[in-house]
């Protein structure tokens, strides 16, 4: 699926759709979502205080494991595990995960791309470190997706429903109590979007 191959905004007053489309485009580019969203459809009925959005995301990125971005070895006296990180921009997340697992005082970073870990069971540690999930793009995507949805909603629509299932996202927002039929309608919108796959 190509990015943004479908972009539809429907409003009660057709002339208003274009204005809202421009708002959405601004938000999408601001949050760097252009390459993530495959298809998007938005329906707004201001007189009912209703905002609905359905999105199909392009296939997501797999989680990054420590062994993909680093190499581990024991130092010569065998007192600590040395981790050489090759992908520098993941170091902050990596450190956080290591602190969690081994305790902050057992993790030392003497150089920019070198991390030392002290542990009672050094060999076990060396093995387990490779499997640590350093970064999960899906998770950060979910967080940003919610941000995008809230930013695009008209201000004051504080009652919200959202679901993300396998790259298929629906979002409904209103000022009034959430109604099942709205969620169903958004579901139908999503079906329309995915229908021709």
């Amino acid at each position, binding site marked *: 699926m190509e990015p943004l191959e479908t972009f539809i905004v429907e409003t009660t007053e057709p002339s208003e759709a274009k*204005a809202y489309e421009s*708002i959405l485009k601004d938000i999408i580019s*601001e949050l760097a979502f252009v390459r993530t969203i495959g298809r998007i459809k938005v329906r707004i009925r*201001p007189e009912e*205080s209703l905002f609905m959005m359905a999105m199909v995301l392009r296939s997501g990125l797999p989680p990054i494991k420590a062994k993909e971005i680093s190499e581990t070895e024991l130092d010569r006296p065998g007192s600590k595990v040395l981790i050489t990180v090759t992908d520098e921009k993941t170091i902050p997340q990596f450190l956080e995960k290591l602190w969690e697992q081994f305790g902050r005082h057992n993790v030392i970073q003497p150089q920019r791309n070198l991390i030392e870990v002290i542990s009672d069971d050094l060999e076990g540690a060396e093995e387990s470190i490779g499997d640590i999930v350093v970064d999960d793009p899906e998770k950060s995507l979910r967080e940003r997706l919610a941000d995008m949805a809230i930013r695009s909603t*008209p*201000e004051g629509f504080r009652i919200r429903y959202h679901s993300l299932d396998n790259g298929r996202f629906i979002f409904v927002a209103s*000022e*009034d109590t959430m109604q099942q039929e709205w969620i169903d309608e958004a579901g139908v919108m999503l079906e329309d979007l995915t229908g021709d796959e």
Partner: protein
Amino acid sequence: MAAVLEPYIYEGGIHKHSLILELLEDLGGYLVQKTPASTEVTLVMLIPKKDVQLVEDLCKKLLGKLTPAPLTGTEIAVVSPTLASHHLPHSACDVAEYLRRGGANTNMIGLARGMGRRVALSADYERKLINEHDVAVFSFGTFKDCIINKKPKLFEGIEIPIIVSGGPDLKTEDVPGADMYVGGIGRVAHRMRKGPELDAMDVLNEKVGEIINLKRESISKDPLVVLPARLMKEVQEQVPDIHNVLTPAPITLQLDGMRVKLPFDEYHEAIGNIEFDEGFRLSDVASITPSKMKNYILIKIKRRSEVGSAI
């Protein structure tokens, strides 16, 4: 009879700009605001109508630009339903910025609970604050239904002229309670810089100018006892502490008065005691009240019919 004054903005280098100020003083005009920015300076001035040419010649000699600024001497409230990113940045800021280019002083007011359709409302304090201005510009969004059916409840209790800006193309009479509606300025998530957007802003400035002119006309039928610009000069001379005020526009002119940005409790007597050569004291010819904005002083000058004579 006082000379007819015309508002202008001078933009140019700071070098020798004092020549303009000297000329202005000789001609009997007034400097409303001076904004220096590194090597540039912006002067907002009121120039006697028959002498505009003299000032223009001097400005040309100094390689500066003199443009008419019809909104000079007005204080305008730009009201946004909330301070949230949905409402405030961009469109409302651009509106305020554009009005400033016309010479106006603008204050942006974000309502505490103006969002949404059902719950939107304004507080008494907010209404009083808005009413202290000459004109209120409400900056609304994209949807016709909201602007026509829901948002006008924010106008309740507003006694000054109301100008509404929004996205859809509507007629003024469609928006209940508004004195003027200007379309093409709805919610946007970017700075307004495209052609049609800037055109809409020009229209807005023009319409605000029309409303201001109506108000000026109604004032001219029963003139103020003293010109706000003249009073401004007296405040600067007789209450020297005003020169220590660091806020922009320490004295903000309004059509029928001004806001003096000094604490009310300490200074209202000094302000009331300002004397004019003609033998008046300010407290006799104006009402001096605490402003809803911080603790500033709000002066509203009385009309000639109330006092019986003018200065």
